[in-house]
């Protein structure tokens, strides 16, 4: 009985005000779901990146197949990346990676951002690659990498390994790794690594230089 009275009263009141916000909300959701981002023209992208037209076409076809709406949000990104590392937990590292790709901090990666990052990583100069990596490590984008940031990154990487490793992971393995890193990179021993220090130290290391050339033929 009470229910019957309730519905009657609700119908009379607030026909105007109450309904509109809900309708707007529905419309907003509706709009979000049909919005799809289209990238700028093929020529423009070709000019901005180091990829050829065919390569861009292939990349876009794959991207559009996976994300018909044209954008990748963080959850999808984490899911995709996690599939490559089934042994451990890739979500933390994927989060940092997402932030590195999403240079505009919009919360979603569009095709242009995706392509720019790929172009830098695969076809860019050594300096560009190292700058991108520095930005990855510099979580708060203040221009310095401190020990906490580095520890976060390294722990995230070790998380991807999972539990079953040989030799077994100890609790202070990330810390030791970070210490070794700072030993190498921090020239003036001020506890932080700047971009110049980073690039200089990497250029001195032959291993790193050689490895940077390995990924040229990924596409």
């Amino acid at each position, binding site marked *: 009985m009470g229910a019957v009275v309730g519905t009657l009263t609700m119908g009379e009141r607030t026909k105007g005000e109450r309904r509109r916000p809900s309708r707007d909300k529905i419309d907003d959701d509706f709009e979000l779901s049909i919005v799809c981002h289209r990238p700028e023209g093929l020529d423009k992208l070709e000019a901005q990146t180091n990829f050829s037209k065919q390569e861009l076409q292939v*990349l876009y076809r794959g991207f559009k197949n996976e994300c018909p709406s044209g954008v990748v949000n963080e959850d999808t990104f984490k899911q995709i990346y996690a*599939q490559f590392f089934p042994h451990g937990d890739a979500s933390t590292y994927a989060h940092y990676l997402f932030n590195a790709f999403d240079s505009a901090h919009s919360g979603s990666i569009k095709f242009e951002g*995706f392509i720019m990052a*790929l172009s830098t990583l*695969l076809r860019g100069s050594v300096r560009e690659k190292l700058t*991108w990596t520095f930005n990855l490590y510099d979580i708060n984008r203040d221009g310095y990498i401190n020990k906490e940031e580095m520890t976060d990154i*390294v722990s995230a990487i070790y998380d991807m390994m999972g539990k079953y490793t040989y030799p077994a992971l100890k609790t202070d393995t990330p810390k030791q790794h970070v210490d070794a890193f700072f030993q190498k990179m921090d020239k003036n021993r001020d506890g932080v690594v700047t971009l110049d220090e980073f690039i200089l130290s990497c250029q001195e290391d032959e291993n790193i230089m050689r490895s940077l050339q390995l990924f040229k033929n990924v596409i």
Partner: protein
Amino acid sequence: MAAGVATWMPFARAAAVGWLPLAQQTMPKPPVDKTSRSDEILFVNVSGLRFQTWKNTLDRYPDTLLGSSEKEFFYNEETQEYFFDRDPEMFRHILNFFRTGKLHYPRHECIQAFEEELAFYGIIPEIIGDCCMEEYRDRKKENQERLAEDTEAENAGDAPLPPDATLRDKLWRAFENPHTSTMALVFYYVTGFFIAVSVIANVVETVPCRPLKGSIKDLPCGEKFSVAFSCLDTACVLIFSCEYLMRLYAAPSRCDFARSVMSVIDVVAILPFYIGLIMPENEEVSGAFVTLRVFRVFRIFKFSRHSQGLRILGCTLQACASELGFLLFSLTMAVIIFATVMFYAEKGTKGTTFSSIPASFWYTIVTMTTLGYGDMVPDSIAGKIFGSICSLSGVLVIALPVPVIVSNFARIYHQNQRADKMRAQQKVRQARIRMAKKGATNAFLQHKEDGGLQGGDSDSTAFCVKNRSAFEHQHHHLLQCLEKTTNHEFTDEVTYSEVCMMDSMGFRTSRSTSLSSQQGATTTCCSRRAKRRAIRLANSTVSVSRGSVQELDTLHVTKTPVGTQYPQSRSSLNARTEDLKLNCTDYTAAIISIPTPPANSPDESLPNSPAIPGILRNSRSSIYNTQETVKISSL
């Protein structure tokens, strides 16, 4: 790996650059991909329907046929496309899977055909998207049930027992399948009759009969004719006990049998009698003894062996156990609620029948099932209102689970109908399949008679050879090789059984003698039979019969043609090469016509097909030669 991840591989590898400064060891060399990286359009021709797709699309799922190098086996160099000789309609769905990453199940297709296509293309059915998964699973379950019934029907005890079956096996089969032997059928009907008699006796003995002379009170018939009824009861119980013991003896697994429902019913049916025998005749226990007689009515459940419908009903109730349980539970809830309400509503009324809540249960149940006896009726207004609500809700609560039970019953009933139909059709199907197979074997035997053994020497054989496909040639050659290997020859059923019969009739002497003395030995019933057939043959197409001469010549090269005794039969057989202008069409026609009528009944109505085996049987069965390769039978 999951679907579509292949597309993201370049990105994941590029992101590995972020690990490089941290790496403490050198990175391994990347794999060198020799194939061209640029994307190209592939052409896939499926039975004439041409599909085009990007190579990358197919590469997304590398563990399927199309995504791996397996498709190179189907590559056609001339037309520069991949050709698959499969269903083009199904291929559409397969290709859509590659394109969208979701596999859909087409509802109008047969589920087995779909699964076969999936198996061919290397796609596991578990990938089917959620939208189509339920439909797929339902159809698959239905199909499996149907197939399970087919195999069950085949394995049903209709097949004849192996010859070394023990008495136990025979007895068990007689019990389980009464239609297999007359004795079993008789037993089945006798037990059914006695069950009915026992139940009727139980019922009739409580009917009041006319009283004995000199007394006024009506007696139940059971007491008037107590001797007769007790004799009947004893007889029935004896028969049931015998039956139970025999079943127990014959059962292949006595534990399982003892635990089965039917055996429990049997035991419960006969137990009261024995308990009554054991129990003493004193007053205290006779009350309990009387209740035991109630269990005699369980004998009516023994009818479920005789009635399939009862079994189906039992199955249904078992299958709907959860729905019945829900019905019971909801009824109980409603009963308690309404009983409480009615009790408190009627509490004020003077002299009310609603004396307690349990007493109100009876009212609630009677009202909810819309019986309405009227022995308990509410007086107050509140009571009447709640009473009406009670009866309305009762209808609803009972009506809800009933359709589920009904649909389950319909499903099980149809399954049973289908199983019976299958079994009936199975026999016809098997007979037809056997005949078709026989056509194939007859073709080989036929081929031998035409002189296929000779090789391609004479012109006549060349005629017939043309009419057979390369496959048949190879097959026949293969069978000949087998014959040569094993030193035995192929023959057909009839001649083999004839030979067996003849052997058992003791005509071994004819076999051991040489050919020249075969003449005398030909006065066998077989040759008499052969004569009969030859007469029949004379009326039929003679060209056919003449053709078979050649194979006689080939096989009995050293033998002089015998035959003054039965000129009618032999003369036609002795016709020589001038008659060898074989009409090959006759042969092929004969081969084709074999499957239709069975060759076992060589009657006049079938001139063509049986004539050939008939005449050949005629020639061979009378001539045995152990010096040559041992012939199992003359053909």
